[in-house]
């Protein structure tokens, strides 16, 4: 024991005296300090939320538990170094024979070393807490982002996560050295552990797997997030993350694993001299120096004296040919050195394994996969396998730079006449070839995956383009950086560390610097679309990469002059040598690179900053704030409204330009004359012409702030109209710093009216809404939306503040091989000047929401005829799609018909006689409903692969949802007030749910609703401002979509489909095509309330007016035999009902509500679309009164039950749904006995 203590004490003294220990400490401290400052709002422009953000305090227990273990994990390389060194230092200095021959026991020795290692690691990682705390008391932290100091908030992450993780990682790294007696496995091991962690994350993305993912995560972070995923803001701020549930299980499992690893290391550890170590294979990492001498078994004969003159003559050549041969020799040697290394094989194998797993789940949405189209495969490949390529670059760049020195062969090598430039170039090119080979491998893996998944449309050229054209250059640039770093730093481990820091830091830096020219390897972006190919991304990408390649050239020259050759490795000597070496070819390469670098840099700057406007986030914010300060006073100045729109747009797909000629008919609907027109016209639009048909003077022309005022020569009298005629150019010039606008595409144009049409009056929607942003700009706090009770909100709808129902007439021209589409009916199509023209008109007024689409489409047509007895004529259906995306066209046409069936039968006729779904590229991934036209992104349904009957058919769902919007937005539209999105989005969700239920059966609804429940709970947990009740939602998607689905589905269940639909229809009929004044959510809720029986009226409050949560749990369920061969089931349940405020603080309210009680038989093993396999066959399913607290519910059923419980289909909002039901304990067998012996008891 005393030996153990002595070893611990000695080791601690050893480490605490080492400077590196304190450097590591400082690294942790500064990283934590930095991140904490970011979260505490020190940088105005950086919004980085790691747990914190919005209303969650930076030093809240939840935020610290999310942040601190992650920093500790990023430092896993440091742990690797410390833990590995605990044993390796003996081998390294060859002192092991001395140690291992002392009379210290193995237990004391290993135990002592391990204990000391863990203690040192704890000391080092304590820098995280200290750094984070220091940031909170620093002057740069913002007080409103900080909660009062709480010791446990800092201590808890150590107890729950950091310390157990350290025990695990230390055990692993300790064991690696004990087994291999080498340090390299630890270098690699650190990276592999981090990757393993990333791996677990991508495999378990589905909601079903959260618990499992939580258990298998060795570092417990996912367990922690599974435990806290639905925490409200209030909980995040106040509650300590408990060591319970999945987190506790996870910790126990992995501490067990740590113990097992340590035990294995203990058993395998040999307390013996390493020279005769039989376990040790000869390896490249253990240098065969003259020091560790193997016994010379051979006895050689005496040698005759060497005759130098007898050696054959040779010619030495140092010309171009000589250099080429030297290059080739070093190159191929370096290439094979990497490829044949054991670790390489392991990393690549692990990468391929990961790739196969990741590729299986491409593009999953609602658990349904997509077809493995090439761009998705490529994304998965480079996204997943790319991490492994980065690891290979990071480590083998170091290995190659150190190749000769690692085996102590450098003096032999350095004394040969090869030039540094050739050595470096050859090694670098070898690395580049390795990367190329790996990308080739990825391509093969991608194609094999496609074959395995039955997809045979191989786009080899696309693979080559994207892998070689785009990804390859990025990896090579990184390799160049890694090489230069390793050479200049000239410390192998520090080099590895810095390369990793660079990988991580590079991403971070970008949030601080808006100027991409300073951000190594950056570009304007690149997104591939099946429809539009590389679109406008290719050329800018080329220029950026040329710019960075030239810079990489400079880096490599730097590496060449700083290349360590010989024994001079002091900084002074290296600088002297560098100056001397910088001549001849190197100087020429440097000069050439510098010229290209500066030239392309200037060219890029010209494009991004002169031809295009490049504003930083803060400049943008500031402009918007100024706009509000300067012009908000005009908000209530009387303005005319748009009543009619005539527009002619010329689209130029090849250049990305559009020219818009339009007429607005503006009518003064106010009671006072209008003397000036206020306009918002986006800054990137060129105003070529703008007049009002009468004299007008431009009195304010503030393009950067998006504001123009024209004073009319003669005021516009109330009731009068004028025509505003304008011609705008939307011209693409060069390329911007970030290519965001691809709305006019080579093929697949999707140009929305909001992107180019002038707005009339002050548009309050452009004001800053984020409270943090407003504070930074010293603007008063602003409600996101006004309440529906405010009658001022009724005057405009929430879609178009300057127009109500408008007449619409559009002419659009495009390339002759493209089809151009907008809302309305095609009147005429013609060709002129080599362009194709389309003229569309609408026969009734519409909401001012429309767009232009143009592409080389394939067209599928069909007709929907209303069933007999319904009014209205047939509707022409059409899907305009990318020819390669025919997969779900039939499904979508079918969905359109089914949706029209249901909606016309239940809500009223469809107002148009045509309906088109029109595909657009994946630059955005949504579908949207415009008058008789539905733009639909290629990425959310066109390539979905719905196969099994239990797969969620989301193309069907999205189609049904969008078709419903033809009613909910285009027949009735809400006022510009809280809750209005409920009138469009929630009703569209409800409508779609009804169509889906009819199509797929009630048994298939639970799965969808579970996704909705999860999205709602996650959404409220990550809310940045405040959660609103459904009827007062402030355009919060998790409320109007996800909670909306749950609530309306449940209401339908309580009051019945007929009543529900009648209530909705009543609301629709009252407000159809009406406004202003526009209806609000309260009107709909009133309508539903009126349809609800008094006994259920409480639901209106619970579901629409408040945030209500249930905690429903079935503690146990028992079945006893009942007379007549029936089964009596007793279900013991506990129930609780809670109300939450806008931050999620909860108060319990008494409950006496009707809740589903269900008893189920086991589902048959054969899939049946009528049976939900996870629930079973309902034997009993009916609503019963359930009150707060524990209670017993008894039910009698005819068949043997399997599971039972309350709210089995999750209709109510409950954060833990898996405990709603439980397995039924079978006591039918015991029944006869107590029945037979009642008399003997008393």
């Amino acid at each position, binding site marked *: 024991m005393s030996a153990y203590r002595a070893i611990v004490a000695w080791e601690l003294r050893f480490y605490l005296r080492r400077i590196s220990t304190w450097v590591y400490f400082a690294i942790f401290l500064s990283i934590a300090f930095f991140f904490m400052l970011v979260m505490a709002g020190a940088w105005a422009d950086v919004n980085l939320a790691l747990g914190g953000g919005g209303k969650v305090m930076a030093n809240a227990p939840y935020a610290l538990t999310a942040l601190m273990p992650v920093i500790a994990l990023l430092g896993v390389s440091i742990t690797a170094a410390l833990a590995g060194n605990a044993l390796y230092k003996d081998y390294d200095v060859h002192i092991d024979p001395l140690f291992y021959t002392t009379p210290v026991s193995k237990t004391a020795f290993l135990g002592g070393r391990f204990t000391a290692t863990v203690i040192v690691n704890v000391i080092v990682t304590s820098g995280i807490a200290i750094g984070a705390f220091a940031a909170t008391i620093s002057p740069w932290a913002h007080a409103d982002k900080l909660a009062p100091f709480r010791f446990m908030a800092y201590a808890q992450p150590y107890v729950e996560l950091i310390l157990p993780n350290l025990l695990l990682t230390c055990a692993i790294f300790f064991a690696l050295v004990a087994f291999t007696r080498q340090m390299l496995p630890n270098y690699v091991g650190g990276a592999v552990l981090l990757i393993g962690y990333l791996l677990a994350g991508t495999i378990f993305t589905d909601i079903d797997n959260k618990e499992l993912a939580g258990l298998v995560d060795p570092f417990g972070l996912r367990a922690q997030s599974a435990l806290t995923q639905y925490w409200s803001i209030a909980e995040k701020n106040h509650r300590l993350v408990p060591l319970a549930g999945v987190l506790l299980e996870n910790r126990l499992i992995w501490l067990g694993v740590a113990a097992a690893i340590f035990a294995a290391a203990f058993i395998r550890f040999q307390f013996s001299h390493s020279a005769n170590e039989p376990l040790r294979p000869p390896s490249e990492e253990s240098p065969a120096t003259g020091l560790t001498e193997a016994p010379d078994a051979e006895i*050689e004969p005496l040698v005759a004296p060497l005759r130098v003159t007898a050696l054959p003559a*040779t010619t030495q050549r140092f010309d171009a040919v000589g250099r080429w041969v030297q290059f080739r020799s070093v190159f191929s040697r370096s290439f094979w050195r990497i490829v044949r290394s054991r670790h390489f094989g392991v990393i690549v194998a692990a990468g391929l394994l990961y790739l196969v797993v990741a590729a299986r789940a491409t593009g999953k949405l609602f658990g349904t996969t997509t077809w493995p189209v090439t761009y998705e495969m490529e994304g998965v490949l480079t996204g997943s396998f790319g991490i492994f390529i980065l690891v290979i670059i990071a480590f083998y760049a170091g290995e190659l730079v150190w190749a000769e020195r690692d085996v102590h062969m450098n003096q032999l090598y350095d004394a040969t006449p090869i030039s540094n430039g050739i050595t470096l170039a050859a090694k670098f090119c070898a690395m580049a070839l390795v990367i190329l080979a790996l990308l080739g491998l990825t391509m093969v893996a991608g194609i094999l995956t496609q074959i395995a998944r039955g997809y045979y449309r191989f786009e080899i050229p696309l693979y080559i383009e994207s892998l070689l054209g785009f990804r390859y250059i990025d990896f090579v640039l990184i390799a160049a950086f890694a090489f230069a770093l390793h050479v200049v730093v000239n410390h192998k481990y520090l080099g590895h560390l810095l390369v990793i820091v660079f990988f991580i830091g590079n991403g971070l830096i970008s949030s601080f610097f808006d100027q991409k020219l300073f951000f190594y390897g950056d570009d304007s972006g690149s997104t591939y679309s099946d429809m539009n190919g590389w679109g406008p991304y290719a050329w800018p990408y080329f220029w950026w990469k040329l710019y960075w390649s030239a810079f990489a050239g400079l880096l490599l020259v730097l590496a060449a002059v700083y290349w360590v050759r010989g024994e001079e490795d002091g900084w002074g000597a290296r600088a002297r040598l560098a100056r001397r070496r910088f001549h001849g070819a190197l100087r020429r390469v440097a000069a050439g690179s510098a010229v290209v670098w500066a030239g392309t840099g200037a060219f890029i700057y010209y494009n991004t900053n002169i031809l295009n406007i490049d504003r930083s986030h803060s400049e943008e914010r500031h402009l918007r704030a100024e706009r509000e300060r300067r012009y908000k006073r005009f908000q209530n100045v009387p303005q005319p409204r748009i009543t009619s729109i005539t527009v002619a747009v010329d689209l130029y797909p090849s250049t990305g330009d559009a020219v818009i000629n339009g007429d607005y008919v503006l009518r003064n609907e106010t009671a006072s004359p209008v003397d000036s027109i206020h306009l918002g016209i986006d800054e990137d639009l060129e105003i070529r012409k703008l007049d009002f048909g009468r004299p007008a003077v431009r009195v304010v022309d503030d393009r950067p702030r998006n504001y123009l005022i024209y004073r009319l020569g003669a005021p516009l009298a109330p009731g009068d109209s004028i025509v505003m005629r304008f011609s705008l150019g939307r011209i693409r010039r060069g390329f911007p710093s970030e290519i965001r606008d691809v709305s006019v595409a080579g093929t697949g144009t999707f140009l929305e009216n909001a992107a180019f049409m002038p707005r009339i009056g002050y548009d309050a929607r452009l004001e800053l809404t984020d409270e943090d942003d407003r504070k930074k700009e010293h603007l008063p706090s602003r409600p996101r939306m006004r309440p529906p009770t405010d009658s001022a909100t009724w005057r405009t709808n929430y879609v178009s503040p300057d127009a109500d129902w408008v007449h619409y007439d559009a002419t659009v021209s495009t390339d002759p091989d493209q089809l151009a589409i907008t809302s309305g009916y095609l009147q005429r199509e013609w060709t002129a000047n080599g362009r194709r023209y389309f003229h569309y008109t609408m026969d009734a007024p519409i909401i001012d929401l429309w767009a232009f689409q143009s592409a080389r489409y394939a067209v599928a047509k069909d007709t929907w005829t209303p069933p007999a007895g319904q009014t209205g004529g047939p509707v022409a259906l059409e899907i305009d799609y990318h020819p390669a995306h025919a997969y779900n066209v039939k499904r979508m046409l079918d969905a359109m018909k089914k949706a029209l069936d249901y909606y016309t039968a239940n809500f009223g006729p469809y107002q148009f006689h045509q309906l088109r779904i029109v595909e657009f590229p994946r630059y955005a991934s949504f579908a949207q409903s415009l008058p008789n036209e539905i733009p639909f992104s290629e990425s959310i349904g066109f390539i979905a692969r719905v196969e099994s009957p239990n797969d969620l058919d989301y193309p069907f769902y999205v189609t049904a949802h969008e078709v419903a919007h033809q009613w909910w937005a285009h027949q009735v539209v809400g006022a510009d007030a809280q809750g209005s999105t409920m009138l469009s989005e929630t009703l569209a969700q409800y409508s779609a749910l009804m169509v889906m239920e009819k199509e797929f059966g009630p048994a298939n609804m639970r799965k969808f609703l579970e996704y909705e429940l999860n999205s709602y709970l996650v959404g409220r947990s990550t809310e940045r401002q405040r959660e609103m009740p459904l009827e007062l939602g402030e355009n919060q998607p998790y409320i109007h979509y996800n909670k909306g689905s749950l609530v309306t589905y449940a209401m339908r269940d309580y009051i019945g489909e007929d009543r529900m639909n009648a209530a909705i229809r009543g609301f629709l009929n009252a407000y159809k095509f009406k406004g202003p004044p526009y209806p609000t959510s309260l009107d709909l809720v009133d309508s539903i309330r009126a349809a609800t029986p008094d006994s259920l009226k409480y639901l209106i409050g619970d579901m629409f007016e408040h945030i209500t949560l249930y905690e429903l749990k079935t503690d146990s369920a028992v079945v006893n035999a009942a007379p007549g061969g029936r089964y009596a089931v007793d279900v013991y349940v506990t129930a609780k009902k809670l109300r939450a405020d806008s931050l999620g603080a909860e108060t319990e309210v008494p409950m006496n509500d009707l809740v589903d009680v269900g008893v189920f038989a086991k589902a048959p093993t054969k899939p049946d679309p009528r049976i939900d396999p996870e629930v079973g066959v309902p034997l009993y399913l009916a609503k019963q009164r359930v009150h707060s607290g524990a209670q017993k519910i008894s039910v009698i059923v005819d068949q043997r039950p399997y599971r039972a419980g309350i709210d089995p289909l999750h209709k109510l909002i409950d954060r833990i749904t898996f405990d709603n039901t439980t397995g039924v304990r079978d006591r039918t067998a015991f029944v006869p006995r107590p029945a037979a012996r009642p008399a003997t008891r008393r």
Partner: protein
Amino acid sequence: MDLRIEHLSKTYENGTRALHDVSLTIPPGMFGLLGPNGAGKSTLMRILATLQEPDSGAAHLGEIDVLRDPSAVRRTLGYLPQEFGLYPKVTAEDLLDHFAVLKGIVDARERKQIVNALFEQTNLESARGKQLGSYSGGMRQRFGIAVALLGRPRLIIVDEPTAGLDPAERVRFLNLLSELGENAVVILSTHIVDDVSDLCSHMAIIDKGEIRLEAEPATAIDDLRGKIWVRAVERAELADYQRDHAVISTKLSAGKTLVRVFAETQPADGFAPAEAHLEDVYFAALRRQPAAA
């Protein structure tokens, strides 16, 4: 073609003075650089092998300025460092061929011939296909010689080659070295006197960074002939002898201490004349104060 070293000085960053104003002229043939451990031999060797930079001074190999034009030196340099390793998983054949390329032997046929010849000469013929990880210390040293001889260098630097070898290996290795000096400047640095006396036509003795003696071994021994005296003394008397006489070395023999003394004539009774060895030259040179050198 001589190697001329002029006023080389080198002090390390930690203050160690490795070389101080070293000047030597080394003619073709074997040149022994003799000195104790830490005398500055390896520093001098590495400077000449272009792997280190002196603080001041110059070195010329014929017309080549060693310090200003290292690549010209490397083209004609054969260097066998004191300690070195080799890629353990590569075969000797493969690595030697690689070094031949590095030395500029571009023609594959020529390379094959020279590699074959060198394996034969260094007696590694049978082990040429083996991985270098399995080589013994002696085999590795001989492989190093093969590398050094590629391209028929005019300057060969061999730094402490026999340090780790057993006696038999050492003999074998010295045999190998013995004929190197025919056309080249060969510098053999060692702390073992016998290495020099067996092989070298010229020598210098270096200690504490300074040259103590530059001579031909035979001449140096001749100079001492008749001036070396030996006597067995009791251990207790040793201090007196060391005070009174120019003691070159002492050696234990059968319980007594044999004292070797430098003197023009018999220093005292009981001293017998002894044969002069190179070792005497070496110790005499080391004993001398630097100022007297």
